[in-house]
Each structure stands twice: as structure tokens, then as C-alpha cells.
């Protein structure tokens, strides 16, 4: 979250709820190192990334759900047969993404 913490703090100061999704584990090849984060605000603002763009849309949907429920989620993305043509990592790696509301 380090790289986007200033932006997240600005959003929070403006009174918005914010959810942060962070890459917490990578296996084999992965587009971003662990600790890389994507933040989504209540009003739909976004900053940062968790991949080269391959899984952002799905993370965004999950972030909106966490915004509503406040319950954190741990997601795993990789290439599987049924996912290969939808959401996945073309580099063949796998990543775990932790999605949480920030207080």
C-alpha cells in the first residue's frame, strides 16, 4: 500500500470510504511484486494496480463488494482452463490479492 498511501489518505480526508487490494503472494512468474496495491473509493476513483491490467476488472468488482460489506476477501488469480479466456494472468503465474476496507 506504500506507493498509494498518500492518495488513499487524500480520499479518506475528503470523507470517502476506501478499499485497498494488495498483492500478498506470487507464485512462479508475476507481473507485480508483493506489496503492490490498487485502491478503489466509494465514488469509483481508482489508483495503483495489482497486475499489468489482466485482473484489475475482477479486483474492482470485488473491491466494490468489500466496500458494501466491510468484510475482507482473499482472492487467487492464475491460469486455469476455465479462466484462461476470461480473467487470468497470461504470464502463467499466480497471485493472491487481499482486499480490505481501510479504517
Amino acid at each position: 500500500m506504500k506507493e498509494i498511501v498518500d492518495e488513499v489518505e487524500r480520499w479518506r480526508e475528503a470523507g470517502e470510504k476506501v478499499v485497498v487490494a494488495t498483492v500478498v503472494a506470487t507464485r512462479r512468474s508475476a507481473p507485480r511484486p508483493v506489496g503492490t496495491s490498487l485502491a478503489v473509493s466509494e465514488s469509483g476513483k481508482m489508483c495503483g494496480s495489482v497486475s499489468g491490467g489482466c485482473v484489475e476488472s475482477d479486483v474492482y468488482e470485488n473491491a466494490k463488494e468489500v466496500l458494501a460489506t466491510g468484510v475482507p476477501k482473499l482472492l487467487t488469480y492464475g491460469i486455469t482452463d476455465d479462466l484462461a479466456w476470461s480473467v487470468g494472468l497470461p504470464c502463467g503465474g499466480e497471485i493472491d490479492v487481499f482486499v480490505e476496507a481501510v479504517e
Partner: protein
Amino acid sequence: MSLVARLAALRASQDRGVLFTVIEGDGVGAKLLVLESGEQVGGGVPAEAADQFHELVRRGRNRLLAVEGARVFAEWYGPPPRVFVYGAVDTAEALCRGVKLLGWTAIVADARAAFLTPERIPSADRLIAKWPQEALDEIEPDHQTAIVVLTHDDKFDEPALIGALATEAFYVGALGSRRNQERRRGRLLEAGVAEEQLGRISGPCGLDLGADTQQETALSILAEILAVRAGRSGGLLREAKQRIHAEVE
């Protein structure tokens, strides 16, 4: 102050700290920020994870910890690595430009104040017009500091290298031909530097890229600094057997 506000302040101050987050298991979502000063914000993180603070803060990388009944993500906060260059020569400016590209901090020192001007080295974050030991005392190199000695002049290079070897800098490099390295080695031994300490000096510094210009030399040195920091030897990725990215677990 909220945790996020504290993290933003921490990032601005560049003090070192670790943010622990339970991502799986008991108390999922709990957060604890631990600072080097001993300050703590938050809680609910297993002691088995928080106890690894000193090792984590020193290692300077994010890491996922598996502890009894939980997985805890540890995010490292702290200043970017520093490159300290002794010798305000042309290569110093090229090196500083590369250091800034990495988002690191560039410091150049030289006792010859006439060489050490912002016009000659505009990319340095800091210029220090002092003799080697005094300059080293001022910046206090740590395990996140690389030192490169560039003067080609024994009266500066030798005290700079002796001083550098007395620090825990992760990289100590020196320019100079192989013949000069051999001669300098003899002189440093005479000056009382231990044989095993001499092994820490990358000299001539840089990867074997066939570098010719100042810029190419700077790139070659920075490439070696990155490789040393990641514990790699720096070869062709297509011939490498290990993971492409640095080990982060």
C-alpha cells in the same frame, strides 16, 4: 490519527517500520504498525509474526509470513536505498541520473569543492565537499547504502575504500584498471585492511557490458549494484535458471 494518516506521515518522514496485516486465519483484517522507535499502532496480530520485526525491517522487503493459525502480510516502510559516490567526475553525474531513475537517493562527495558543483552534477540529491572519512561520517552508510569510489586518485580512493569497508554498505565498488586494482590491493593490505574485507570491493566495478562512455559505465555499475542487492550474478535471463524477479516469498 488514523492508521492511513500515520502511514502517510511515515512515508514522508522515511522512518523505518513494518505494517502487519492478518490476511487469513484468526483475526483476519487485523493490522499492527511497528516503528523502529518502538511506537506501535493497532493490534490483533499474532506475536509470532510481530516478533520478526527486526529481521523484516533490516531485510527491507515485503514478505508473507506463515504463523500458527494465520497468514500475515508484512509490508516494509523506509527510505529508498542510497548510492554514495566519492569523486565528482563525469561518471558521477551519469550515475546520479541512473540512481534517480531507480527512485533511489544519490549523494556525491569530493574534497575538491571546485569540481563539486550543482552545474557539474545537477542530478545529485546532495553534494558534500569533504574528505572521504568526514563525508562517510556525515552520511553514515547502512545496509541499504551502496558506495562507489571514482576519483582514480590514491589519496582519495584509499581512505574512501578503507572507510567504506568499515561500514555495512551492501556494495563497495571502485573504478580503475585491473593493474591499478592489484596495486591498490597491496596498499590497502599494508594499511591494515583485512584480506577478507578486500573481497567486498567490486573492482573494477560494473557488469561486463562492454561499456565505453560515461553513461554506459554508469549503467554497468548500477546493474552490478542491483544484482548484488538481489544476490544475483547478473547474466542473461534466457540462460538463468532461477525466478526472474527477486525472491520475495
